[in-house]
C-alpha cells in the first residue's frame, strides 16, 4: 500500500529565508507524488506533481521538489519565503492500482514571520 509521511507538523521560517518541507513516501511501484497547499478556509491548490519524468519538479510560486528514489523522499523547497506562503502543505501519493485515490500526509503548517 502507498503512504506518505510528513516529518514536521510545523515549520517556522523568517521572510526571505529558505523553506524545506520534508516528505517520505512508501510505494511498491513508481509513485505519482503531489504537493498541495491549503490556505485558511480555502480549498487545496496543486503546487507541483511528479509522475516519473524529470526528478526535479518545478511548481508554482517558486516552489520545487526533488524525487529521490534512493531516499524515498519528495521534499518541497523554496529559496526565499514570502509572507503569503504561510499555509498548510500536504504531501500526497496516488494509489497505483485501480482507480486513482489520493493518500494524504498529515500536513505541515508553514509559519512565516516578518
Amino acid at each position: 500500500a502507498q503512504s506518505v509521511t510528513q516529518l514536521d507538523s510545523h515549520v517556522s521560517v523568517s521572510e526571505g529565508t529558505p523553506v524545506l518541507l520534508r516528505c517520505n513516501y512508501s510505494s511498491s511501484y513508481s509513485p505519482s507524488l503531489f504537493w498541495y497547499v491549503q490556505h485558511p478556509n480555502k480549498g487545496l491548490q496543486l503546487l507541483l506533481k511528479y509522475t516519473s519524468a524529470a526528478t526535479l519538479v518545478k511548481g508554482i510560486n517558486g516552489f520545487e521538489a526533488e524525487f529521490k528514489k534512493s531516499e524515498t523522499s519528495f521534499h518541497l523547497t523554496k529559496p526565499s519565503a514570502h509572507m503569503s506562503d504561510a499555509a498548510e502543505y500536504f504531501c500526497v501519493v496516488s494509489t497505483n492500482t485501480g482507480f486513482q485515490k489520493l493518500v494524504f500526509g498529515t500536513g505541515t503548517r508553514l509559519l512565516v514571520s516578518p
Partner: protein
Amino acid sequence: DAMVIQNPRYQVTQFGKPVTLSCSQTLNHNVMYWYQQKSSQAPKLLFHYYDKDFNNEADTPDNFQSRRPNTSFCFLDIRSPGLGDAAMYLCATSRVGLRTDTQYFGPGTRLTVL
C-alpha cells in the same frame, strides 16, 4: 475563470436537519470526488463518481449520499447531520482517474451543525 465551484461557501444547519451541498465544474472532467476535512486533519475521501458510476468508500456513513445529475454538477446530501459532521467539505475533479491525473479542488463548503 473558476473551474470547480462550490455553493454555499458556508452552511449552517440544525442537528438532524437535512442539508445539500453543491459542486459544479467547467472542466468537463469525468470524475468528481467528495472529501470531508475536519479541523487540522487531512481530507478524507467519502465517494466519487466516474461519469454516472457511483463509488462509495467502505467507511463512509450511510448518512452521506450523493447525486450527479449531469457531467457538470454533483451534490452531497447529509440526511441527518450530527455534531460530528461539522467539517469542511471539498469537491474535486479529475479527467479520467488515472494515477497521474491531477485532482482540482473547489474552495470548499464549511458546514456548521448547531
